[in-house]
């Protein structure tokens, strides 16, 4: 076996991490409590981070821990706490007919085919080190930075736009006003009318500070309609 041909510590690390990763994944899927699922997710993420180190992607491993485990999962937990949905889901029952059976069959078929087709072909035939030489340590990070800010400059900028959109979207979706919403809306509409049609344009960037809120709340109604 190839696994055995690897150096001993590497093999041990891989096996342990694989166990952690798969165990964490199964934990996410099988735990009743969402909080527990989130914690299992953290376990998986850590396992993957260790594998990243093993694959000499040190920087990504750190990013994985900080962003995924540190930010995203915390965000999950926040939402769980905030909404109080940490009650247990009944995993024993399944309302959709055959959903579970078909899901497992399809999933295993997928896995089987990936491995079946790929077995013996799990090799890369591409050319080596096109974008930059990947190596462990500092030089690897330098190369990654170079690649990100030169070769991948355009995608990088696009992701920044994507993040902005995501932030604005999240704000729009979440930050709706409470029960008093209708009054506020009326006030705004009245104000917008007095300001004339141009000012009332929803996406007008040049609106003054105190109007941002108002404009936003107009947006919320749009968002509400979309969701409902």
């Amino acid at each position, binding site marked *: 076996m190839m696994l055995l041909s690897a150096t001993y510590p590497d093999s041990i690390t891989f096996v342990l991490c694989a166990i952690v990763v798969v165990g964490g994944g199964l934990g996410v899927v099988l735990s009743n409590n969402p909080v527990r699922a989130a914690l299992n997710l953290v376990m998986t993420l850590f396992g993957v981070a260790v594998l990243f180190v093993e694959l000499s992607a040190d920087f990504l491993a750190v990013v994985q821990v900080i962003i995924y485990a540190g930010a995203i999962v915390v965000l999950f937990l926040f939402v769980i706490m905030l909404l109080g949905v940490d009650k247990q889901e009944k995993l024993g029952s399944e309302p*959709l007919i055959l*959903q579970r059976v*078909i*899901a497992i069959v*399809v*999933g295993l*078929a*997928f896995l089987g*085919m*990936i491995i079946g*087709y790929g077995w013996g072909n799990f090799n890369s035939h591409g050319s080596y080190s096109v974008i930059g030489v990947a190596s462990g340590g500092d030089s690897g990070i330098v190369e990654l930075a170079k690649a990100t800010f030169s070769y991948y400059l355009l995608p990088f900028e696009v992701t920044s736009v994507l993040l902005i959109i995501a932030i604005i979207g999240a704000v729009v979706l979440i930050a709706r006003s409470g029960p008093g919403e209708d009054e506020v809306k009326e006030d705004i509409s009245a104000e917008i009318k007095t300001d004339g049609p141009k000012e009332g344009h929803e996406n007008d960037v040049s609106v003054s500070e105190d109007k941002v809120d108002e404009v936003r709340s107009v947006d919320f109604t749009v968002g509400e309609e979309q969701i409902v």
Partner: protein
Amino acid sequence: MKLVFLIPAFPLLGALSLIFFGRKLKEPLAGYIATAAVGLSFIFSVVVWIKFLGFSGNVFVDHLFVWINTGSFKVDAALRVDPLSLTMVLFVTGVSTLIHFYSVEYMHKDIDFPKFFLYLNLFVTSMIILVLGNNMLLTFVGWEGVGVCSYFLISFWHERPSAASAGKKAMIVNRIADVGFLLSMFLVIHYVHSLNYSAIFAAGPSLAKTTVDAIVLLAFVGAMGKSAQVPLYGWLADAMEGPTPVSALIHAATMVTAGVYLMVRLSPLLALSPDVAHIITIIGILTAFMAAMSATAQDDIKKVLAYSTVSQLGYMFVGVGTGAYAAAIFLMVTHAFYKALLFLSSGSVIHGMHDEQNLKKMGALKVVMPITAVAFFTGWMAIAGVPPFAGFWSKGDVLVGAFSESWLVWIIGLFTAGITSYYMGREYCLAFLGKARWISESSKGKKKSSKKEDHGHVVDPHEPSFKMMIPVVTLAILALVGGLLNLPFASSLKFLDKFLTPVIAASPSYFHPSAVNQIALGVLDAVFAIGGGLIAYFIWSKTYEKPALEFTLFKNAWYIDKTGDVAIARTSTKLAEVTDNVIEPKVIDGAVIGLSKLVLAVGILVRKMASGFVRREALVIAGGLVALIIIGGLRGGL
């Protein structure tokens, strides 16, 4: 000779000026402008003819401009001046001028007076283009122009349903025949790569015989429509719905002669194809005979003339088919004279009788319209072929051709000549001799003939005005002396024959009878003509009702129209009804509704897939992914 373009240009100019200023021009002026346009055209035809007599060659072609230029295929707009086209142009413009002049009075007080002359001018323009065209396509332009104008003119009084439908009939029958002409042209383009007549004739001998047969036969199909041969002759009788000058124009000078012209024009090809020539002869003699028989039983003064035209056209095709091309043209020219004469004098009768066309309600008009009666009598004598009138010489030539072809054709032709004389005599007697049926009707029938009074007409036949007499008398003189064009006594007297010889084919079968034979044939012609006329006189000058001699079969023109009606119109109506009642609701609607039902059923089925459950839909996506992988794996893509 460069002036040849002026011949079509003047009528065209007249038509254009009438389009733009017709409404402003007051009544007589528009007519006189149109007459002047055609008259100038005639004058220039004469000028060109005189110049041509001094011309050394046989054919003069005036290239106006390149019309179509597509790679190797090129069509010029070019006018061809040769003896044939000159002959045609001379009598077309000449007779047309007279008819135009006549129409000015005849159409007096018509609402659409300027429009009428616009159409007349356009008609003459088209006809001139038809005969002067240097290639088949230009001829076809004139051909279609003539067809369109005939539609306009036959339906001129379009508020009458019968006139409207007669125009449509003329249009449709001619379109059917035009397909033949078009196909003939396509064949010529394919095999000769040029539509120029000279090129076609030059290529003719090298073409396969079947190709020539097909070209000529298809062209003859076109000619059958235009020249009203069996079985496509129904439209010409219905064309009588148009104003009488139009009938004169269509029958005498323009339209119907186009088919004969085309066949004579193509005579170098036709001479290569004796089989088609036989077919043309048979159809021609059949038409001559059937139409003449039909003419014996008609009551409408113009219908008799219509069938006589068809019959005479049959004679012309007999001439074409037997290789007597010059004789066919000779008959065409003289026919133009006497048929225009007959139509115009019958127009005078109709005018005098206040639009009464029924022969049975006329009689004794000789007393009140003596000049018209003499003119009509001249026309009768001319068409009957009584010597020395024009018809005797021209028809004699054609019958000589028929005699050379087959004695059977000749006998039928001779017999038909007798019939011709008979039905024209019948018409003359009914209209001008006997009792004055119109008097009895108007005096005693105060109650009965209230129909007439409704229209405010008092039947008071009278000689038309002097202006209307001029063309009639001119034509009468021409009908009398037209034979001078081609007298058979000595070859030096055969002006038309000599003139035309360079451009028409000499048919190998053409028969040159000895002097004795010729005299014998001529005497027989004359005997039959006079005999037919005398029989008509003895029967019809005494009485006007003799049903025994007016067979319903002939009255209905051998039921050919009815047959066509039953065979084509009724069946297609039936087909349409079946389509409407069965195929439309069951098949087409069924398909459409079935399709919608299918879509609905599929939609109901598919709708179940859209459960709205996110997980179910995610499962479908995952299943699709797996399916894709399977397919990719089966095709070896992975």
